[in-house]
């Protein structure tokens, strides 16, 4: 084997930096913990938690209108709170708010509520005609994240990256 593979959260951190996404807002999530930790530890990023996902969309949109690129990190249930503000702010005003969702509710979910609300995520993204991709493999992560960011900024369109348990390991409990 060659050198040890870079972890998924290291790949994402580097791609965010390379694309000048310096503002990172998030609602904490256990699966995202290594990514949040890496970003918080890096002085390049302005990173902080928000009280609610809607608020993060507003902050990222306001920052972009001021000339700063940003992203909002959350889990599936948090995304489910966002349809109205995504439709009426970044979609309507053509603002490239980038969302990154740690996917709960599938591939070993233990919480019925998460399993149910997960089913609404892709239909909502499709209904809003939002570009979205699900990252499942480490060897595809850099390409998918980088190209999604570039396209969002180039076309002034919001986008969503879903991080599958296949990539992150997800969150499980013993049965």
């Amino acid at each position, binding site marked *: 084997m060659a050198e040890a593979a870079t972890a998924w959260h290291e790949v994402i951190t580097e791609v965010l930096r390379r694309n000048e996404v310096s503002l990172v807002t998030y609602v904490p999530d256990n699966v995202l913990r290594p990514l949040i930790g890496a970003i918080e530890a890096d002085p390049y990023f302005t990173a902080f938690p928000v009280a609610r996902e809607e608020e993060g969309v507003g*902050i990222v949109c306001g920052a972009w209108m001021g000339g700063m690129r940003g992203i909002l990190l959350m889990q599936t249930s948090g995304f489910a709170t966002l349809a109205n503000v995504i439709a009426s702010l970044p979609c309507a005003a053509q603002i490239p708010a980038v969302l990154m969702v740690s996917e709960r509710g599938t591939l070993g979910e233990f919480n019925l509520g998460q399993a149910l609300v997960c089913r609404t995520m892709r239909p909502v993204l499709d209904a809003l005609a939002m570009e979205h991709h699900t990252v499942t493999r480490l060897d595809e992560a850099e390409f998918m994240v980088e190209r999604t960011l570039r396209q969002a900024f180039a076309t002034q369109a919001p986008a969503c990256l879903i991080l599958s348990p296949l990539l992150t390991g997800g969150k499980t409990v013993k049965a």
Partner: protein
Amino acid sequence: MEALHNAKVMNRFDLTKRLVAKLKDEAVIGGIGNSNFDLWASGHRPQNFYMLGSMGLAAPIALGFALAQPQRRVFALEGDGSLLMQLGCLSTIATRAPRNLCVILWDNGVYQITGSQPTPAATARTDFVAIARASGLSQSHWAADEAEFESLVDASLAGEGPFFIGVRVDSQPAVAQPERDPSRIRDSFMRGVGSKG
């Protein structure tokens, strides 16, 4: 609570005009409904953003903008019903403590645009300035009258924020509305604040 109930009930359009008259290159984020309608009616400025949807996000948008352009002051104009939907943002603002941000709350106690139904906060006599202060925004004040509103705005233009100004207002509807073209509004704002063009 006393401060709230001693504050004079003023007129949002009158006060919006008084605010705008003091501005140079400051950004203003007008919240959903009458907050941005009165901003528009006070005379369009390239540095104005008129938020047509996303109820409750005027202050978060202003926070994001304040972080992106720390050298430019930004005002958020938000209604009481809108803020009630997103009270958590006050803690976030307090945590980031942007020196260039001022939130102005128009408190008429009703959801004016949907038929003037009273808000739960009005019925419960909730004090938004007390909430702001308890959220960590120490420079939070009710404007007792028009003169104090102007002096609080002057202080926010001269000093280091974040600031929160609570204003009791009547239920006069707005006299004009901006054109409902969100991408055009966004593009105009970005050019007005030097982010584009």
